[in-house]
């Protein structure tokens, strides 16, 4: 283990950033997705194009936007569009990646961000809802998802489906009227990285974070997982990744600090 100290948000953002390929177009939500995209752009994917839902396209790398309509999403941007224009570009298939969070996920990558509780009209907890997540996951070719890993979040049946994954499995998206050949691609958690088995469209354990066991992942997952033949271990954040995250991307620690409380 390295001697670098970091919290789980810094770790998740670092790992996720490594999967964002250079030259692709990414639509990122607020929070860790934006951290990861900003980090990728500064470290290894300088030609990553970011699209934000309020209309910002390809801003210069700057401090982390605090909202999807923050003027940092248009800082020296090459294009300032509008929200419908942003979603219309996505609807045409412009975005390689969407990058989202959520409150609950199932084995097909369907996301709930609307409510906790069995009855829509009597929610235990009412959550904010889709925002632009539904469009992002409906339209992007591949959707990255980032969320905390436990049995309340990784569930057999979400209370509500806000944002489509593969819906009820192979062919589900096409039957529902969504564009074919798109869907959830990878899930990043504080325990592991998961992807989706191409035929069954079911979530599959791909790699572990250092110190995490397969048993631990199973224990924290509320549905039956599939497993890659070779489950690898992710590399810890590098000094450079941590420096960029802390000094350049989120110097005010608006998002990074949310990982501090949980550390011992």
């Amino acid at each position, binding site marked *: 283990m390295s001697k670098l100290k970091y919290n789980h948000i810094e770790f998740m953002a670092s790992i996720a950033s490594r999967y964002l390929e250079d030259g692709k177009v990414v639509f990122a939500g607020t929070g860790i997705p934006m951290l990861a995209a900003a980090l990728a752009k500064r470290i290894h994917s300088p030609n990553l194009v970011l699209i934000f839902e309020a209309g910002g396209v390809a801003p210069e790398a700057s401090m982390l936007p605090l909202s999807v309509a923050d003027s940092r999403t248009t800082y020296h941007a090459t294009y300032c569009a509008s929200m*419908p*224009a942003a979603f219309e570009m996505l609807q045409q298939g412009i975005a390689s990646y969407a990058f989202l969070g959520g409150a609950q996920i199932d084995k097909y990558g369907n996301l709930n961000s609307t409510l906790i509780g069995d009855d829509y009209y009597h929610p235990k907890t009412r959550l904010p809802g889709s925002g632009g997540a539904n469009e992002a996951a409906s339209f992007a070719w591949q959707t990255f998802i980032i969320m905390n890993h436990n049995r309340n979040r990784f569930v057999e049946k979400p209370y509500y489906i806000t944002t489509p994954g593969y819906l009820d499995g192979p062919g589900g998206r096409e039957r529902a009227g969504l564009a074919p050949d798109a869907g959830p691609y990878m899930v990043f958690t504080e325990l592991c990285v998961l992807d989706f088995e191409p035929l069954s469209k079911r979530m599959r354990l791909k790699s572990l974070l250092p110190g995490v066991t397969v048993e631990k992942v199973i224990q924290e997952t509320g549905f039956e997982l599939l497993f890659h033949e070779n489950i690898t271990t992710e590399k810890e954040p590098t000094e450079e990744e941590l420096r960029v995250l802390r000094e350049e991307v989120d110097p005010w620690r608006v998002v990074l600090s949310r990982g501090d409380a949980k550390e011992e």
Partner: protein
Amino acid sequence: MPIAFVHEVLRQGFRNLGMASGTRNLDGDFLLDNDRIVKLDIGYILGLEMLGIPLYARTLVQNKLKTGELKISEWTNGTMAWRHKAAAMGLPFLPVRSLAGTDSFKYSAAKQIECPFTGIKVVLVPAIFCDTCCIHVHRADKYGNCQIDGMLNEDYDKARSAKNLIITTEKIVDTKEIRKDGSKTVIPQFYVDAVVEVPNGAYPTNMPGLYYLDLDHLKAYAKAAGDRSGESLKKYYNDYVFGTKDFKEFMKKCGGKKRIEELRKIEHMEGRK
């Protein structure tokens, strides 16, 4: 909605309102905190993105959902943007390809049909015509020709789809200024019912190119909004809204010109790369 506008809606005691939008955060939460909303057509509510969760308003919304005093129609940011766009185009609906297959489709008013030309399934979202829309712009003339710098978000279609359109503007300028570059005009005069000059009218939120959001103020609000008892919010609104006679007095309380100058520097990232 510009914060200056929302303050005045609160002060003047408007209630039993419907609110229609994609994402609303601070502005929408102000109205929810004060129990002014009975109907929502919405994509995102009760969130302050990264700043936290407005627990008092959330409890209020949950309770009112139970009693039926609050009705929610579920949408997404895209489908709400297109509902406004349909109205702005003078059409009764638009076909789109999101929302399909989800519970939000069931709890919305959207319909799904087969496209008569291609046979693919499309979701139809109905046009929405708000009674009143208020938009804050960088500059407008006295006739209502409005120019906006930077991204447009939902402004273009919302302005065109509302029955009454109120413009708050950082500055009322001579029409000659507008004529210098008509391509910057986003809202032409015939949509506009009123123009009000309100410098810094978006504060403590962000006005692109002019001032960044005031993170300290927003954090203080988020902290108050996270107090379930409502006591902290009562103090916030008494201090900043009901205890001030207008937006000018509110701005003075928040540090006035000096604070705006600090936020201008942050907006342009002076001293930072």
